[in-house]
């Protein structure tokens, strides 16, 4: 193990062990740890093993020398991770959020904290350990604590200097003014801070004993906290910084033990910093019917703009793009920014390669809908069953079905079982079901793929917002038809959702129904987009709910444009005729040269285009302006997948460096 503390010991001539993999890094220059090229994590690992250099530190050191870094949203938006990974990115970086239709939820999740009794217990244990360590150090090396104390009294902190030079990305968990102000007097001494934490944790424990649902603002929480424990708002804000400071000065290496404590401390800082945009919800029971309490204190972030604000402030160019980011104007409202360029592109394809259809009624002309009142109506269930049967007959290979929720999926599947629907489907396709258990689901996916490949064909019954709808591609024969059963509205009884809707209404003037409908449609579009993953791909998209007819304008432009008026109000049998015709024509061999000049460009095409318009003249201008003004840089939004703009395959494109 190599750590700052161990190195200091060696320097002082003491015994400590260093990691060979880390020490070998010093053989090379900082910016030269790996050869130029494109690197994935696996490649880095093998390279590190061969050259006996630590891949982890290689990445951390090289990250500022890379031309392109591709990583998950969390590395930038989640303050706990961004603090380590993305802090040093330069201001001139261009940040692109691809597949950003869900970005508001990622922002919210990255600042929300769930506290259970288990968390509290572990945190209390962590404090206990910390206290013991301090007691030991007091005896063995009291100078260390004294040094720390004196530094804090003088208000000296390194972070402060760095922040002043504007070197780092801001962190919502570490508000700016905290870094410039001295740590409050009542937590300067380590033992005082420990007792402070103990009190706070004990207080949270008493809150967990309440047996009814509580929903309160941070303000009222702080008020009550102060009445009971004399903890003021100000020191609470410093909690997270104070703990990391203490951990550093005590040179603690076993950080694992303090993860829960860290969570509590971040919660403390957030709750004391943000009066608006957060809500505390205590749910004593897991479900309405549960009798044994299992309390969860949810600290829910309602305002997506808090987490993304540092990004907008720091980087000059931010691009938000996705294939299913629609309607566009919802995002600037929710994330609180103004767009410089806002563009919605239609798809450029050589042939009509996907067939969206809205099915509103069954063959018997009964309207179909997953509306709560009628969703379990036998005639509706049977009609949905018929769609499933018929499409499994005509769809070659893969067929994906999405339901609005697990609950509805379960109830409808059991009804289909008694109606004999599943037996009928079974004749044509294998039936596989997504479950909340991710291991089971990946097993199901594996079998699904196998069945698609060997010609047996399969139906995958899955859930909008589930893992399948978010992250799995059904390209080519893995998905020839996608069927949306019902509009995937969120579960509106959730307390957090209610609080968020309220917040959006009061602060951003977004009406509840608008948001719910927007959210449902973006998930629907996300599900539909699963089957069309490339230029030579094709598929049928069936939206089976009467309510889709009115909501079609909320679909992304490329889907909405391809949706003919005559196909937006079909019955099951009519849609089947269309689909059969479509699939037959698609099955004809396609000449890949037909695409040239339309959806695939050669170098000549590109040069020709460049001549015509000197690539997007506004764009260059606005970038210039961005240099002068301090705040909103150019935040652009594109309604198209980046995958369509370039031909890079992002799988083998994790990191490039020069």
């Amino acid at each position, binding site marked *: 193990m190599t750590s700052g503390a161990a190195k200091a010991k060696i320097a002082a001539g003491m015994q400590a062990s260093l990691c060979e993999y880390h020490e070998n890094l010093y053989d090379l220059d900082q910016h030269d740890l790996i050869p130029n090229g494109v690197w994935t994590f696996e490649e880095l690992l093998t390279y590190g093993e061969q050259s006996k250099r630590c891949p982890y530190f290689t990445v951390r050191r090289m990250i500022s020398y890379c031309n392109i870094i591709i990583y998950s949203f969390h590395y930038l938006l989640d303050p706990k991770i961004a603090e380590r990974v993305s802090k040093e990115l330069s201001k001139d970086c261009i940040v692109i959020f691809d597949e950003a239709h869900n970005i508001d939820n990622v922002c919210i999740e990255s600042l929300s904290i769930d506290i259970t009794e288990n968390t509290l217990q572990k945190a*209390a244990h962590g404090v206990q350990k910390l206290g013991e360590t301090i007691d030991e150090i007091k005896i063995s090396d009291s100078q260390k604590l004294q040094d720390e104390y004196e530094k804090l*009294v003088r208000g000296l902190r390194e972070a402060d200097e760095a922040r002043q030079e504007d070197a780092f990305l801001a962190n919502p968990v570490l508000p700016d003014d905290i870094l410039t*102000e*001295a740590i*409050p*007097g*009542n937590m*300067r*001494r380590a*033992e*005082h801070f420990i*007792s402070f934490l*103990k*009190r706070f944790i*004990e*207080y949270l*424990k*008493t809150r967990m004993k309440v047996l009814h649902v509580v929903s309160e603002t941070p303000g009222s929480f702080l008020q009550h906290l102060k009445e*009971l*424990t*004399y903890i003021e708002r100000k020191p609470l804000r410093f909690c997270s910084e104070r703990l990391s400071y203490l951990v550093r000065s005590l040179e603690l290496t076993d950080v694992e033990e303090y993860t829960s404590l860290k969570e509590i401390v971040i919660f403390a800082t957030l709750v004391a910093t943000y009066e608006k945009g957060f809500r505390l919800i205590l749910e004593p029971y897991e479900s309405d019917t549960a009798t044994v309490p299992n309390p969860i204190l949810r600290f829910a972030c309602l305002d997506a703009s808090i987490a993304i604000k540092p990004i907008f402030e720091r980087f000059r160019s931010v691009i938000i793009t996705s294939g299913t980011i629609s309607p566009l104007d919802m995002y600037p409202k929710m994330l609180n920014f103004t767009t410089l360029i806002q563009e919605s592109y239609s798809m450029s394809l050589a042939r009509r390669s996907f067939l969206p259809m809205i099915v509103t009624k069954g063959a018997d002309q009964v309207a179909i809908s997953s509306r709560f009142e009628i969703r379990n109506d036998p005639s509706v269930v049977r009609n949905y069953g018929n769609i499933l049967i018929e499409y499994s007959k005509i769809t070659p290979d893969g067929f994906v079905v999405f339901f609005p929720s697990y609950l509805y999926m379960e109830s409808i599947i059991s009804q289909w079982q008694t109606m004999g629907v599943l037996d009928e489907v079974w004749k044509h396709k294998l039936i596989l079901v997504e479950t909340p258990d991710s291991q089971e689901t990946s097993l199901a996916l594996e079998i699904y793929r196998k069945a698609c490949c060997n010609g047996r064909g399969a139906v995958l019954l899955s859930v909008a917002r589930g893992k399948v709808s978010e992250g799995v591609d059904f390209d080519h024969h893995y998905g020839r038809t996608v069927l949306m059963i019902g509009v995937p509205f969120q579960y509106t009884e959730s307390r957090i959702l209610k609080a968020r809707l309220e917040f959006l209404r009061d602060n951003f003037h977004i009406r509840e129904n608008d948001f719910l409908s927007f959210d449902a449609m973006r998930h629907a579009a996300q599900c539909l987009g699963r089957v069309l993953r490339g230029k030579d791909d094709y598929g049928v998209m069936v939206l089976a709910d009467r309510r889709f007819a009115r909501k079609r304008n909320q679909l992304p432009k490329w889907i909405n444009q391809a949706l003919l008026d005559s196909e937006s109000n079909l019955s099951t049998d009519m849609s089947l005729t269309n689909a059969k015709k479509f699939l037959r024509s698609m099955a004809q061999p396609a000449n890949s040269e037909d695409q040239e000049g339309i959806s695939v460009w050669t170098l000549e095409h590109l040069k020709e285009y460049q001549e015509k318009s000197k690539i997007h003249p506004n764009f260059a201008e606005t970038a210039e302006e961005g240099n002068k003004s301090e705040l909103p840089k150019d935040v652009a939004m594109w309604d198209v997948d980046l995958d369509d703009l370039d031909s890079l395959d992002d799988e083998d494109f994790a990191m490039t460096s020069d």
Partner: protein
Amino acid sequence: MAGKDDEDTCYVCKSSRYLNPEMRFLINTECYHKMCSNCVDRIFSYGPGPCPYPGCDKILRKNKFKEQLFDDIGVEKEVDCRARVMKVYNKTEQDFDSLEEYNAYLEEIEDLVFSLVNGVNVSEVEAKLEAQRAVKTEPRQPKKDIGGVPATPFTPFNGDRGANTLIALSDSLHDPLNEKLIDQKEFSASGYVPQVYYRRALFEAFMGICCFIDAEKTRPIETT
């Protein structure tokens, strides 16, 4: 270590929660030894007595028993001590000229609480608290005091120059009609208090007393 048994059984009478689910545990602010409410009733109903825990010679009173708020007895004790300290050490950041002084003050509070909890130099701490209490009785001057004029609410005449009231209310003033009203909910709920009513009636009746219009007019209006 407190096992599960300890948490559900009274140390004094050995009755446990299994037999009596209604059982409540109480603690006192002297030695924080825990016992059930029945024991407290039995032992201390006739006056103060010694703690039944062996080796503990604290004298306890029934009215000093309370329900335990925090699971951790240490925290419970600390919060009680803190309550005592905070009662007299109640300055806020505005009362200090600089942040450093305020932070030093906060640290002093922590030190006091710490010694009270751990029982070191208790007499010293008590003396300090006593001293602070004495300081507190002096009227505190607001920090930012412009000029010598005491701050008064806004009046058209630059503050009430006649600060001493000319009217005194006698405690023994007896008015059967108005005093009865206080017993009626609809009056008491809206904040009716006879004394306030008397004072206002008197004030309105003699408002103009000692106010000389000629003199007011000739006096220059001060602007702050």
